[in-house]
């Protein structure tokens, strides 16, 4: 059996709780991501999503467990893993264009200045930033534009894995919608593997091939992996018509509403079950995919 492109194996993160003991954020979290897949992770605040993201990016070390990409263990940050941070993380003293060339120069030190700039402009225009706007400093750009620059910087480097940490969390709903579609457009052209944190269920359904659901912390775990059986290309206005849409959505809402709490309770008691938390529960809906009736999703879950 071949390993997935990215495999997260028995990842555990504990922090000192300030009283001499330790607080376990998540324990033995394991899952895999295939090449070219777009995976979203959903869970309540405090379940350690951002910690997982930082570990994947190489910015943090897990207490225990390993992350393997292409069979090689991940240690430290790398250009192979691009990150789009929630707060954009653009360098404020550089123009939008320079922020993108900053990344490309790091990736391709041997490229000529013209080639770097042309490449940067190409990717900026893919996210709808053309003309004079690219010469503005981040402080002169709106939040949506800043995040576009950040996305362009990440995609321009063609990382093997792209990590998006709640990229649209700070944006208003209308801007978010536009940029989500731009993200889909730029992604569909690149076959990029993407791992994204989000709080927004609709956003996750629109973008993802698969949604990972995390239980609440402490002792959080990745409890389920929900496949999004809505064919691409997807449009916000069209996917709501798809028969699977509300079924999937209801399932996600139910999980985040109730079961994330119930499962969290179980996990703390069931310490001896830890090896079995290596679990990706495939919630297949293929048979129901073309059925106009609502698929009986609840029955599929154990």
């Amino acid at each position: 059996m071949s390993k997935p492109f990215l495999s997260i194996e028995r990842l555990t993160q504990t922090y000192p709780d300030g009283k001499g003991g330790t607080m376990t954020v998540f324990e033995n979290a394991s899952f895999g991501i295939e090449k070219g897949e777009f995976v979203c992770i959903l869970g309540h605040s405090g379940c350690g999503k951002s910690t997982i993201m930082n570990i994947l990016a190489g910015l943090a070390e897990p207490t225990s467990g390993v992350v393997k990409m292409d069979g090689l263990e991940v240690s430290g940050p790398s250009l192979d893993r691009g990150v789009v941070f929630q707060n954009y993380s653009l360098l404020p003293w550089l123009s939008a264009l320079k922020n993108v060339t900053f990344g490309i120069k790091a990736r391709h030190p041997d490229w000529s200045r013209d080639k770097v700039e042309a490449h940067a402009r190409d990717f900026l225009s893919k996210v709808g930033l053309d003309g004079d706007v690219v010469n503005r400093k981040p402080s002169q750009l709106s939040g949506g534009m800043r995040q576009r620059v950040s996305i362009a910087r990440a995609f321009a480097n063609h990382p093997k894995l792209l990590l998006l940490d709640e990229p649209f969390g700070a944006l208003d709903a209308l801007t978010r919608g536009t940029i989500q579609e731009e993200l889909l457009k730029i992604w569909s052209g690149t076959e990029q593997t993407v791992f994204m944190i989000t709080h927004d269920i609709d956003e996750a359904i629109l973008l993802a091939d698969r949604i990972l659901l995390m239980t609440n912390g402490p002792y959080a775990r990745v409890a389920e992996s929900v496949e999004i059986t809505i064919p691409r290309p997807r449009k916000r206005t069209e996917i709501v018509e798809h028969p699977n849409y509300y079924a999937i959505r209801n399932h996600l809402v139910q999980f985040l509403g109730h079961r994330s709490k119930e499962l969290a309770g179980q996990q703390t008691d069931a310490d001896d079950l830890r090896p079995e938390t290596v679990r990706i529960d495939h919630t297949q809906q293929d048979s129901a995919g073309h059925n106009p009736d609502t698929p009986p999703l609840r029955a599929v879950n154990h």
Partner: protein
Amino acid sequence: MLDNLSINQRAAILSLVMLIGGLLIWEAAIPAQKTAENLTEYEILMGLGQERAGVPPPSDVLAKAWEELSNPFYDAGPNDKGIGIQIGYSIYRVLSGYILAAMVAIPLGFLIGMSQIAYKAFNPFIQVLRPISPLAWMPLALFVIQDSEASAIFVIFICSIWPMLINTAFGVAGVRQDWVNVARTHELGSFRTAFTVILPAAAPTIITGMRISIGIAWLVIIAAEMLVGGTGIGYYVWNEWNNLDLTSVIFSILMIGVVGMLLDTAFSVLQRAVAYAE
């Protein structure tokens, strides 16, 4: 009529009014000296008929300024040099000491800002050395260096090092982790991170420290030159005081102010160049 002017124009008018008003009050406050024929016999016996040194009126100072500034670079011996030459010496000493201080303070500040251990290790020394008046070093400097010129430069060095060192360390330590993470995820080495991310991020704080330092250096050079003598605007002030030429003293005080302002302005321009909005 005033309502049509911009705030800057109105402020300029007010400044001008204050200047003229101040000069008039100054001029009027200088008591006229009695001329010899109006003196009583007693006063003549007491020697009061001779011209007494007094604070000169602004008109005298302006005349002096015109005279000095129209020929600033003459050199008529050790005690009679143009104001331009004197200021030139002072600026040369300030810049030498200051540049040496920057060459030490900025790299060291980087190190202290980057490393908690270095910060804690250096901190006690900085805290003890920083409050020492730079002139207190002068005797030791004169003894060790055996050269008054170099001692003055050393005093400038020691007084300008602290604000630069502390601000550089503070600026470097305060660089947002997000920006450092951007450098890390782009696999930048330590040197490229330092030059392309940390330096521009900390530049406004560093330049602020440099601006404070140049201000202090200019304050200290006057006192240092009064002590070491020979040349420089500080020596000039002291020399004119010994000559009891108060017109020259007031003129040179004004020149010290003008040069200090120009040095500060240069750094404020630099500060604006590296500033960024988040």
